[in-house]
Each structure stands twice: as structure tokens, then as C-alpha cells.
């Protein structure tokens, strides 16, 4: 079934992509199934070994020399791809994770290191948690949280399959968890806030998003994301880093949150180098002007990278947050 953009969604995307050709390219690619990317689980096998094994059966590429764990399997497009890739022996043994390339970007931006204390606030299904655990070589600790038990169960299954042993998974609403952790003086080196969103970036893999899209959801998500950010940031160590990411294009859920962060907390945006083409964040949207620094955010468009759409920003906490300082007295 072919879905079309709702008129308001199209109007908003045209405002974000004012060049007609650019918009047409966007409109074309969002109706095509995405490429099949996998990420080698280096906790179980080296990228070199996996590449060699899979290369005997499939046409596999390692598109980024600095990230050999990221592989693109050319043979599989379309609806059968997840089934074939998910049913392969190497997948069942936990040697790789089927993960869309743009969704790998938040963790590449955060760069968790061995021994660090990391919070993954909205963790399920675990693609980014397992990616971080591999980068941390199963050391340090990741507190991986999600709100619902069925989602935590999916997270647990993926952690087991990937042989992840440095994670403590919790089930809580993110705001409440952060509030309790802040009071108990938990402070993390790094936080990943890959926030629940309206999913505009996932049109290629989930075409039903065309039908489900609703501006009220966008506005509601924006409010929820601000609450999540405001609470998560208070659990960060001074000098620590937080990555805020979504799989949506709407500025209410992206730059508006970055603007909110810059205006309310002692944070600065860190420059990030990602292996995908990034466009700068938009500095105004629907009569609202944002802090100029939101430009340092990274907008990932599907037509630029033959990927899904994504948004990533990385902040560093410069000093203790005031109300936290008062609580500490």
C-alpha cells in the first residue's frame, strides 16, 4: 500500500526543505524501502571476521573505514530484509544487530568509553544500549531504562543475545527515575536521551507513519521531551555529556528542545563528527526564533544519505545546575 503525505505534513516539510528539487528528492526516497544495515557486535566477534563470513553468502560493504563494525548488506531491500537478516545464524548467535544507519549516530556522537557510568533513559529495544556496551567493552555501567514491561522484555532479550553484562535495566517513567536518582546524588559521565518522538524520520521502514502523523502528537511529544531533558540533565556530572536525539524532523521536537536546553541550563553544544552528511539545525520555525547555537545540531535527511531521518545534538554540562546546588547544601 502506498501512503501519501498529509497536507500539513507536506507543508511543514516544504518549509524545512524550501528548495523544490530537494523536497522532491525527499518525497521520492521516503517511499522507498531503506537499505539493510547491520552492526557487528564486537563483544562476540571482530568486524573483520564477520565481514569475511557474511561476504561468502551476501554482498556486504563496510562503508566507513573508521567504523568497520557498520556494514551494509546490499542483497536485501524491501519487506523480506528484516526476516532474512533476523533468521541468519550469525544474528541468532548475537554476532550482529540489525540497525538502521542513522540510529547508530547518537552513540557515535556520545562516544561512551570503557569504565564510564552511562544512563540510557529510553533504551528499548536496545540497539543503542548494545552499541554502547560494545564500545565500553562490557565495563563501567549502563543504566538502561524504559517505561513499560513489554519493552523492557524486548530490551532484555537483545542484551542477552548480544552478551551484554554491564547493564542494569530499570522500568520507570524517565522523569520520575531521574528525579529519584538526582535526589540520591547519582551523577553520570554520559547520558543518552534518545527521546520518544513522532517518528517522521522512519517513513521508509514504517510507512504507516504517513497515516499516523498528527501535529498534536508533535506538540505533545515536544512537551514530554522538554520534561525528560530537564530531569536527565540534572543527573549529569559537571563536564559530562548528554546526547539528545530523535528520529523526527519536526523542529518542535528537535531545535525547540535544544533551544530550551541552552536557555535554561548551563550547557554548551559540542561539535560532533559523524560519518553521515549533516545539515545544521534550523534557527527559526513558525515565527519562533531559536538560540543561534542550535545550528550546531545535526539534521540527517534521508535524501542526503540514503538513510532514515534523524536528529542529534550533543551538550556538555559546564557547571552545577542551580537548584541542584541548593539541594546539595
Amino acid at each position: 500500500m502506498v501512503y501519501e503525505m498529509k497536507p500539513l505534513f507536506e507543508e511543514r516539510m516544504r518549509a524545512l526543505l524550501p528548495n523544490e528539487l530537494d523536497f522532491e528528492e525527499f518525497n521520492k526516497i521516503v517511499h522507498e524501502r531503506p537499505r539493510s544495515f547491520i552492526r557487528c557486535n564486537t563483544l562476540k566477534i571482530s568486524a573483520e571476521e564477520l565481514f569475511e563470513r557474511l561476504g561468502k553468502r551476501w554482498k556486504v560493504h563496510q562503508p566507513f573505514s573508521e567504523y568497520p563494525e557498520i556494514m551494509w548488506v546490499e542483497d536485501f531491500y524491501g519487506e523480506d530484509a528484516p526476516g532474512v537478516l533476523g533468521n541468519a545464524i550469525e544474528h541468532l548467535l548475537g554476532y550482529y544487530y540489525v540497525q538502521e544507519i542513522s540510529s547508530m549516530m547518537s552513540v557515535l556522537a556520545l562516544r561512551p568509553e570503557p569504565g564510564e557510568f552511562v544512563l540510557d533513559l529510553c533504551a528499548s529495544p536496545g540497539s543503542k544500549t548494545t552499541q554502547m556496551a560494545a564500545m565500553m567493552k562490557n565495563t563501567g555501567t549502563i543504566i538502561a531504562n524504559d517505561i513499560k514491561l513489554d519493552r523492557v522484555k524486548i530490551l532484555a532479550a537483545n542484551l542477552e543475545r548480544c552478551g551484554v553484562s554491564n547493564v542494569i535495566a530499570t522500568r520507570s517513567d524517565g522523569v520520575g527515575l531521574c528525579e529519584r536518582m538526582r535526589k540520591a546524588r547519582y551523577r553520570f559521565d554520559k547520558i543518552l536521551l534518545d527521546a520518544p518522538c513522532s517518528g517522521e524520520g522512519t517513513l521508509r521502514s514504517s510507512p504507516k507513519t504517513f497515516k499516523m502523523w498528527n501535529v498534536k502528537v508533535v506538540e505533545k511529544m515536544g512537551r514530554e521531551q522538554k520534561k525528560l531533558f530537564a530531569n536527565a540533565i540534572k543527573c549529569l556530572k559537571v563536564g559530562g555529556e548528554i546526547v539528545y536525539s530523535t528520529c523526527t524532523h519536526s523542529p518542535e521536537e528537535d531545535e525547540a528542545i535544544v533551544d530550551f536546553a541552552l536557555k535554561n541550563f548551563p550547557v554548551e553544544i559540542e561539535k560532533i563528527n559523524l560519518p553521515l552528511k549533516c545539515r545544521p539545525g534550523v534557527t527559526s520555525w513558525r515565527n519562533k526564533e531559536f538560540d543561534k547555537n542550535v545550528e550546531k545540531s545535526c539534521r540527517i535527511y534521508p535524501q542526503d544519505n540514503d538513510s532514515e531521518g534523524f536528529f542529534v545534538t550533543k551538550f556538555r554540562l559546564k557547571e552545577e545546575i542551580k537548584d541542584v546546588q541548593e539541594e546539595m547544601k
Partner: protein
Amino acid sequence: MNVKFLKSGEKKKLFSELDEKFGIDKVNYLLFETGKDKIRGYSGHLTREEIMELGEIANVEIIGMYLFKKEVWGVRLSHDAVHAFSDKIKKGIFSIGKEDFDKWIRGNDIDVKCEKGAVILKYGEDFVGCGVSNGEKIFNYVPNERRIRSRG
């Protein structure tokens, strides 16, 4: 999550059995028992006291990974523990061919004669799980979601 950290006597018994059966001479995890005689291992930096404190403010569902199951006759490795200890396992290994592997990965028991008790299965270069042998047959413990789903 109900957590009971293993006492030194319990660990000593477990380590001795792992060494004797599989040649695993080192277990670098904080070990604890959850329900149903399952032993999980955590490789992170928090101490047991810090984990207990965390449990007071957060609804902890999972810690670390499932490694061992205590059976009446001894200890069995979990499906994924065979990878976690792949560089340490020196014995208790049974190599299978393609036909038996195809049965195994689809969740079927395999009819082969080998020593009774827990046995680690290897297919080619891969450790593919841990089964239990009665001498005539190896019983399958591949979790449902980790089996190849037959088409049609």
C-alpha cells in the same frame, strides 16, 4: 528483582565444577542468584552495596546476563554464556555436523552418544549453546526466540 549474591562457599563450589567440567578457570563477574536457580553475572563497576541502593530508588528488572542454571545434577551454562566464556572453555565440548546443527538450531534434541551431563555444542568455529546429554541424546536448550523459524 530479587537478588541473592553468591556467598564465597557457593562460588567456590561453582568455580570448581566449571573448572572440572569445562576447564573454565576464571569467572570475572559479580555473581548472584535470581529465581528458578538461575545465576546471573554482572561485569560493571558498581559494588553489590551500590546495586542494592539502586534497587531502593529504581525498579530494577535485570542486572547483567544470565550465565548458569543450577540443576539437581550440577551446573549448566546458558545459551549465551558459551560465548562469554568461549576463550576459556577447554573441555566438555561436543562438535556436531551440519545435519545435527540444523536440528539443534530449530529447537530439536539430537540423537548422539556422548558423556552424560551438560555438554557444550560446537558447530564449525561457533559455540552454539549448551545441552544436556543422557548418554544417548542431547536435549535442546536453545531459547525459543533464538531458533531458526522454519518457513511455511
